[in-house]
């Protein structure tokens, strides 16, 4: 599987994503600068976590104006896989590639801790190596992860099996405990937890590995 990680200024998890992808796929991902306008030939594009553009205006709003976003949208339109982690999820909602928005945590505090998630959907390139209903633990690190969408959108997401991860103990006020969602074509996943931080026992867990294993199986 060939992958690329987009490098936005102040998105500090790009190197975590690179390390995880290198470890899991055996190949270094392309690191693509936000001012580039073309993507290399890849199967997967990762929008990493962090605080792109200092979260100015709104989280992800400035990153969505980057030159590279056109190529990312084109990649997604063609059915290419896109994984948005944390700030990457915020960018994907700002870009309209995923519905809804991420708002300030209900408790107003930045939260940095492992959380329990249930895997709600295994019918996707991102989650096929998990078991449906499996409980996993993945860290979160965000101040604005409170997922919001109107009721109609939430019903549609649930009806179409696009709610992929749910919090077992909702930390941030997200509607219907939603931690991660798919787009309609199921090739774009956004999630607030950081799976790239739990691919190695040395870092305290390996529950994130299955996302990368799923992608490798689906895309290679």
């Amino acid at each position, binding site marked *: 599987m060939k992958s690329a990680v987009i490098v936005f200024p102040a998105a500090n998890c790009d190197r975590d994503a690179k390390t995880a992808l290198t470890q899991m796929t055996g190949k270094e991902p392309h690191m693509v600068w936000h001012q580039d306008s073309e993507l290399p030939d890849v199967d997967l594009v990762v929008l990493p976590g962090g605080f792109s553009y200092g979260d100015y205006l*709104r989280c992800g709003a400035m990153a969505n104006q980057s030159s590279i976003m056109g190529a990312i949208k084109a990649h997604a339109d063609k059915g290419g896989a896109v994984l948005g982690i944390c700030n990457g999820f915020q960018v994907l909602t700002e870009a309209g590639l995923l519905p809804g*928005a991420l708002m*300030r945590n209900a*408790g*107003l505090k930045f939260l940095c801790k492992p959380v329990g998630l249930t895997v709600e959907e295994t019918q996707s390139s991102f989650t096929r190596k998990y078991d449906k209903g499996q409980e996993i633990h993945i860290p979160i690190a965000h101040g604005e992860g409170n997922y*919001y969408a109107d009721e109609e959108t939430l019903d549609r997401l649930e009806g179409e099996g696009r709610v992929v991860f749910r919090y077992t103990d909702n930390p941030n006020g997200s509607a219907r405990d939603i931690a991660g969602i798919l787009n309609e074509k199921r090739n774009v996943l956004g999630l607030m937890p950081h799976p790239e931080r739990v691919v190695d026992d040395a870092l305290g867990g390996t529950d994130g590995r299955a996302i990368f294993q799923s992608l490798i199986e689906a895309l290679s």
Partner: protein
Amino acid sequence: MKARVFITLKNGVLDPQGKAIGHALNGLGFGSVGEVRQGKVIDLELSGSDAEAAKADLKAMCEKLLANTVIEKYEIELKG
């Protein structure tokens, strides 16, 4: 021309910051304070003198960048 854009959360969208501000005001003894909603103000300077064109531009700016219309609404104020 100068313009001011007000961006606030849509009605029905929970505003935890507004709630915290309201609680703090109540705590300071301002018992008359009920619901509080907070937002942001953006001041812009624009070249040109056509107010209608400026308003149309400002609306497009709000839709494309200044507001996230999934959760926010905006108001535009143009000052001569």
